[in-house]
């Protein structure tokens, strides 16, 4: 089937991609700036075509627990929200990680803390990559910087999540959620059959066939020795993800004297700043982490040997900045330029910020 080029909002793109990748269910509760995800799903009525369930839950707490239930049966299920709603989901996310369940989460971030504002932000970086819930866990975190990546990361997110049995978070923000760009939608993938799920997810609690003991999906284990073993096995999977799934994009980094590090919408702004700085004869490059966990530490460490300084640009007070500093381990200074509370920096501001460190 031919791929279709259409003009979509980032949020709408998530909805289209979810149906097309063969998702079994979406459970959510509306919140700006991501309400179009569920609105679009409701408008597209996938229950009539692919059989995908779309359900508005009574709260974010209910949504994430419905996702837990769906995932426990091996289904491809997802939820989405924005910062305050994602905070409400943290218990369910921790429980999902404790039960090693695959699922797709989407956070279209807005300014905080608290109810904050409805305007774009990246201030949930720590919450996402350092664990917003309790326990030793990680979320595979994909940071889209275009509407096309909103589409692509839905399928990729499910794929990675099922491969490693770790929940995957698409960490977007109000800019990417609300902006429209042309996107290519992938062809429809059929939803998996019960037989396929049984074969791919032998751990799933979807009915006990004769010949094996019942599957139990839980994060609870009262025997500390067994609990430690479960954690060790999980940590091994984390190390495997860190070794194999790091993704990033380099823009004019090859000969750069200075390196800007930015993700998501901030990276788009920085790309304009880099073009501008290059036209002024200043050799700046942009490294855009696509996976925020696993973080592209190795490549940053490599550039730390070559550049004079680095600068992170984020819509927060400097959260990813800490991971960049860990990656370069004191080899170069890592400055920060950030705006908070829903303000998106302009390319001119980034240009000036970088020039102040020359």
């Amino acid at each position, binding site marked *: 089937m031919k791929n279709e080029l259409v003009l979509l909002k980032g949020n709408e793109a998530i909805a289209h991609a979810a149906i097309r990748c063969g998702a079994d269910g979406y459970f959510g509760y509306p919140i700006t700036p991501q309400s179009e995800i569920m609105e679009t799903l409701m408008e597209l009525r996938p229950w009539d075509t692919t059989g995908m369930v779309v359900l508005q839950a009574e709260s974010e707490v209910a949504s994430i627990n419905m996702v837990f239930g769906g995932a426990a049966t091996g289904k491809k299920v997802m939820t989405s929200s924005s910062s305050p709603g994602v905070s409400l989901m943290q218990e369910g996310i921790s429980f999902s990680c404790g039960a090693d369940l695959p699922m797709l989460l989407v956070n279209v971030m807005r300014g905080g803390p608290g109810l904050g504002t409805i305007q774009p932000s990246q201030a949930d970086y720590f919450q996402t990559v350092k664990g917003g819930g309790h326990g030793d866990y990680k979320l595979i975190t994909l940071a889209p910087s275009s509407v096309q990546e909103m589409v692509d990361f839905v399928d990729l997110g499910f794929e990675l999540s099922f491969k490693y049995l770790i929940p995957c978070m698409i960490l977007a923000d109000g*800019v990417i959620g609300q902006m429209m760009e042309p996107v290519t939608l992938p062809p429809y993938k059929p939803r998996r059959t019960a037989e396929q799920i049984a074969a791919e997810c032998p751990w799933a609690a979807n009915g006990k066939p004769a010949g094996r003991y019942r599957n139990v999906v839980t994060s609870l284990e009262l025997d500390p020795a067994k609990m430690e073993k479960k954690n060790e096995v999980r940590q091994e999977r984390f190390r495997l993800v860190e070794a194999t799934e790091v993704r990033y994009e380099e823009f004019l980094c090859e000969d750069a004297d200075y390196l800007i590090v930015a993700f998501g919408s901030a990276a788009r702004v920085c790309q304009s700043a880099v073009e501008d700085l290059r036209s002024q004869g200043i050799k700046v490059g942009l490294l855009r982490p696509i996976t925020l966990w696993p973080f592209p530490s190795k490549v940053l460490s490599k550039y730390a040997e070559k550049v004079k300084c680095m600068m992170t640009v984020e819509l927060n007070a400097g959260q990813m900045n800490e991971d960049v500093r860990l990656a370069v381990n004191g080899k170069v200074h890592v400055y920060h330029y950030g705006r908070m509370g829903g303000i998106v920096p302009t390319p001119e501001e980034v240009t000036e910020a970088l020039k102040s460190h020359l």
Partner: protein
Amino acid sequence: MTKEAIIIAGFGGQGVLSMGKILAYAGLIEAKNVSWFPAYGPEQRGGTANVTVILSDSRISSPVLNTFDTAIILNQQSLDKFESKVRPGGILVYDPQGISRKPTRTDITIYTVNAMEIATEMDNVKAFNMIVLGAYLKVQPIVRLESVMTGLKKSLPERHHKLLPMNQAALIKGGEMVESLSV
């Protein structure tokens, strides 16, 4: 044309966001790179609304900008806010109705179109934004009118397709009525 960055700003309900969307669709039809970024939220329920549309032959980096090639201005607050953000040599198009403090820049080209007046004469105030768009495309023909019509067809639900001829008339009328203020 390599790149045109446009800010369209006015009151919520004037059709600011949809004008931007139709322009973006027209760009898409002509195989350009496009981006559309709205000021979203409470603006949709009254107050000021604005949208940044970028049409480009190359990959679009930042969808959020501080300077624009063109500003299409539909109320006083937006004029006050965005007049200074037009790059030197750029374009400002505005509807003089409701404007008490006129633009003062001399390093940009300024056009007016009495869109609300024309829409009232056409007995269709809903055509307002298409009159403004027609005026803009007359002075800066970055996309063809046929592409705008195709874009309109794509963004309007089928039940509204009977309105297409009226919109086309509004686009043409806007082009005819745009006036340059520069000497």
